[in-house]
């Protein structure tokens, strides 16, 4: 097994690590029993992801992919963010060991789940506003 330098870089200096207390969307995926839990927080303004943060309990690949994902997402529209896949994340990292490929799916799912949460809240808001 062999991680790229990029992976180590994100391990050492994870980008956008932490919570957003008043997040507009929030997604949790994985389970501690499986050895990986990831939480993605997003702050959205005018359909643009203005801020994003992650929390990860997981292996090196899980941490690095969540860190990269937040970098890719920041400043993108919701629609563009939804197009980001684990392949994009892996490409930024310069590859992942074969046994670790699945970890990258976690980050993609985490983001999808946060966006779904955001959209759900939007709908609710609209409904409450009498839409």
């Amino acid at each position, binding site marked *: 097994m062999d991680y790229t330098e990029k992976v180590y870089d994100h391990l050492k200096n994870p980008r956008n*690590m932490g919570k957003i207390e008043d997040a507009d969307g929030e997604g949790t995926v994985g389970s501690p*029993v499986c*050895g990986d*839990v990831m939480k993605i927080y997003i702050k959205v303004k005018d359909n643009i992801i203005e801020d994003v943060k992650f929390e*990860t*309990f997981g*292996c090196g690949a*899980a941490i690095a992919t969540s860190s990269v994902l937040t970098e890719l997402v920041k400043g993108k529209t919701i629609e563009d963010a939804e197009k980001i896949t684990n392949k994009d994340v892996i490409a930024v990292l310069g590859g992942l060991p074969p*046994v670790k490929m699945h970890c990258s799916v976690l980050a993609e799912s985490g983001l999808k789940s946060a966006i779904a949460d955001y959209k759900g809240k939007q709908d609710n808001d609209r409904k409450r506003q009498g839409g």
Partner: protein
Amino acid sequence: MIYMDYNATTPCDKRVVEEMTPFFSGRFGNPSSIYTLARDAYKAIEQARGRLAKLLDCNTNEIFFTSGGTEADNWALVSSAFGLRNKGKHIITSSIEHHAVLHTCQFLEKVGYEVLYLPVDKYGVVDVDVLKQSIRNDTILVSVMAANNEIGTIQPIREIADIVKSKGVYFHTDAVQVTGKTPFSVKEMGVDMASFSCHKLYGPKGVGALYVRKGVTLPPFLHGGGQERRKRAGTENVAGIVGLGKAAEIAVSEMAEEEAKIRALRDRLEQGVRENIPEIIVNGHPEQRLSNTLNFCVKAVEGEAMLLHLDLDGICASSGSACTSGSLEPSHVLIAIGIPEIMLHSSLRFSLGKHNTEGDVDRVLEALPNIVEKLRRMSPLWQ
């Protein structure tokens, strides 16, 4: 670099390498050949056999060299099973064995044998009462490891051997982790077969041995030439065997002193970890444990993430056994001792050795709490 993964492997002692080196290019004869050059290699093997016999406290003709602990385990289990298939097809082992035993048992299950995996208590000690009740008329072999590689728990081998042998059943022990760390006499323990691996005691990888007590009938596992008194075919790894002999000789004379020193360092590390990192669980038996091993779970932090950060700080450790580091399954040993599911991916193992110093321990105690704190700050499971 601070190396604290001696249960995974050890560096060769310089004296071992020195003794091995001439056998590559100069004293390179095939021990089975007839001329002087070859007889020299043959004698070197027999000298090594004598040295290992001293460490294990057995006769030289009870030792058979193998390609490592894994082959020794496979040989003992598979050949016992095939050799005794007319007597029965029931095998008993423990649930915390090394994969070399566990996966071999699973192979045997596939080809028609029945295997019982004994439960262990929260310290990892085999339940001797269950063992007693489980031996049947068709039980052909019991295999229980002497010391566990992950958590270091030492089994009551003497007691187990007494029970097993009173029923006329063969008893094998995987003694890979105990050898060279603390005295272990196969004779006193009363075992029928025992596996060893050289790279755990400051010798080269790819060489080991199986002890087979005189009187025990064990068919060969590797078939071919007449090496090792027709019990283990294949041109001998002469240099490796010579290395094993030297490593055994060094262990005989230096083990006691090293063990005391290493135990003190391990205890210092354990105390420091307990004091400086909140919410951990130390695994394994409080006393009946390898003197070099410290295994613990760190709440809300994943094992590999800690290892990678330790590596960035120049510290080599493990999250369990080396063989499972690349895998994603939680440790079967931690499951067997009842660690809560939520902690199964949070283990860390430091296993110390003769090159470690107090300075090493202190540097680990400096680095680790910061790593844990950083990862906990990142963890959605940490409040």
